């Protein structure tokens, strides 16, 4: 019985940790949907946003004020990206855009470190990374409060974004742009504003993801590597699907935890580092477009 409980515990911890991957992947999907750009810089944005947030907190700003200021900063980042990187590269191939966003990622990482230093910061959200007592009492499971919070935050964000896209004018415009940028701009949808909105939304998602990660692992450069794991998540879920990002994150989170706990000891541990990527390869061989992605059809 305890073994079953332990397994459930591992899976639950994995699923909840997976929502953190989902949060990073979500920012990715937002940008991909709107502009068919693989934003490799999403991980760097996570790092940049949370480092800025902690930096503002250290300046003595209160929690909500720092949050708002960081959001504004991320909007500015989105604005500059749109003007300086995406606009000049319009109609270029996906690979070119991808390489440009790799460059963007380096710029953001460098700027963040130049501005706020390289030392590891602690981020205290007031939510401990310890098991919730009533769950232990009722189910006998150890589930971290931080994980649960991350899960709830992810759910709220996704519902919020879904409502935004479904019921606002901006959201309608965004869906039009995602469908056909040329047609959308020819009927007068402001492409630039839509891009700004998307990059800002991705910036906010990055900030939230960074806060969750930062509270757990400390605000440090390793966040960028963690955020790389959003890539296998996207491959499993599909690049253009928000539910895909969520479910992909859950699959990766649960699988890597289960593998680490049950297979890790036989290989000396730390297989978490590559297991998601290998899992992604198997998915690629079986279903390259991901679980929820649109089927890739290429013609000469």
């Amino acid at each position, binding site marked *: 019985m305890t073994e079953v409980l332990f397994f459930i515990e591992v899976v639950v911890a994995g699923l909840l940790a997976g929502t953190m991957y989902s949060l990073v992947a979500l920012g990715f999907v937002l940008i991909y949907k709107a502009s068919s750009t*693989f934003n*490799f810089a999403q991980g760097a944005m996570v790092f940049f946003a949370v480092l800025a947030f902690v930096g503002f907190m250290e300046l003595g700003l209160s929690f909500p004020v720092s949050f708002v200021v960081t959001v504004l900063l991320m909007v500015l980042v989105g604005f500059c990206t749109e003007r*300086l*990187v995406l606009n*000049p*590269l319009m109609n*270029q191939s*996906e*690979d*070119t855009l*991808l*390489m*440009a966003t*790799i*460059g*963007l*990622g*380096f*710029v*953001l*990482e*460098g*700027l963040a*470190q*130049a501005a706020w*230093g*390289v030392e590891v910061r602690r981020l205290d959200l007031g939510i401990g990374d310890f098991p919730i007592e009533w769950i232990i009492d009722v189910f006998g499971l150890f589930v971290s409060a931080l994980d649960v919070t991350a899960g709830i935050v992810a759910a709220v964000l996704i519902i919020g974004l879904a409502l935004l896209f479904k019921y606002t004018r901006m959201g309608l415009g965004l869906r039009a742009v995602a469908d056909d940028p040329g047609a959308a701009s020819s009927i007068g949808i402001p492409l630039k504003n839509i891009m700004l909105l998307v990059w800002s939304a991705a910036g906010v998602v990055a900030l939230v993801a960074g806060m969750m990660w930062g509270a757990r692992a400390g605000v440090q450069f390793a966040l960028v*590597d963690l955020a*790389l794991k959003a*890539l*296998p998540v*996207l*491959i499993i879920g599909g*690049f253009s699907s928000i539910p895909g990002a969520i479910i992909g994150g859950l699959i990766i989170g649960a699988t890597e935890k289960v593998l680490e706990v049950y297979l890790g000891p036989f*290989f*000396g*541990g*730390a*297989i978490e*580092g*590559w297991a998601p*990527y*290998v899992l*992604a*390869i198997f998915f*690629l*061989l079986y279903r*390259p477009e991901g679980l929820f992605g649109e089927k890739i059809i*290429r*013609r*000469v």
Partner: protein
Amino acid sequence: MEQKVSNNNSFMGYTRSDLTNFLIAMILSFVAIPLVVQTDYWYSSILIPWLCLALAAIGQQIVMGYAGQLALGAAGFMAAGAFACFNLILRVPDIPFFVALGLSGLVAAAFGILFGLPSLRVRGIYLMVATLASQFFIVWMIDKFGWFKNYDTSGIITAQDIVILGKPFTSPLEMYLVILVVVTVLTVLAVNMARGSTGRNWMAVRDMDIAAESMGISLLKTKLQAFAICAFYCGVAGALFAFTYLKSLEPVAFDIKLSFKILFMVILGGLGTISGAFIGAAFILLFPVLLNSVGNNVFHGAIDATIISSIEQVVFGVLIIVFMIYEPLGMAKLWGNIKQRFSINK
């Protein structure tokens, strides 16, 4: 009447200026540099890492610039090559150094084929993620299985001396010459592959793989070949890098940062040119040196070292974006433009 395709001015399809350039480069690197450069610093900190990384960049160039496959795992293959070479020299008695080097390239090539398999199904960022798996997996495997490190627990293993025909090559100049021979042979080979039918197939696949396939080019063969050759070059480069520059073997030296560096060399140097690999490697290697010396000499160390490395990162990032926007073919193309402007016979 039989038409003679090549005229007297060319040799195997190379123009006379190509051959002169090659000759000049050879005289410069084999004779002039050893005669003129006497300080060890230049060899061990600039020339040796430059040649090693340029070799790895040629590998990356082949898979990315020529075959158009977005791979991000060069450092993983380098690690495979480095540790293969270490183990071969350690476990096979009296193995000649060049044989060990070639075999470690082949070991890396085997990994290249294995992790190149996803390229048959996917491209772009999908492929990038698949190759990231090779990066993380190879480094993890070497780190976790003691056999690869000869059960060394300190984490840092000293590389063996390079011994060729009973003579140890240990001074920076001697090591430079060893690397130079390897790099010259492999570069000539790469240039020839790139301009022969192999290279044409790669480029056809890069430009439109479905069209290439319908013209009878086997995607399976072409793509896996590119991955294997890329990994071979990276493996040899990794072995040389570990034995001559690092002088030690540690898996952490081959982390994803190195992969990114090699990727940047290729992008900035110029996709689809062998010379771009050398130019890009020189830039990526020299720019931090330059920045540090500016920091030390102009600002007298007033700027923190971490800030300098951050600035370096920002500059690389900005350059990538700028090159993508204004000159996607990189520095090699810029150089070509300059040459064309000043040449008489256009």
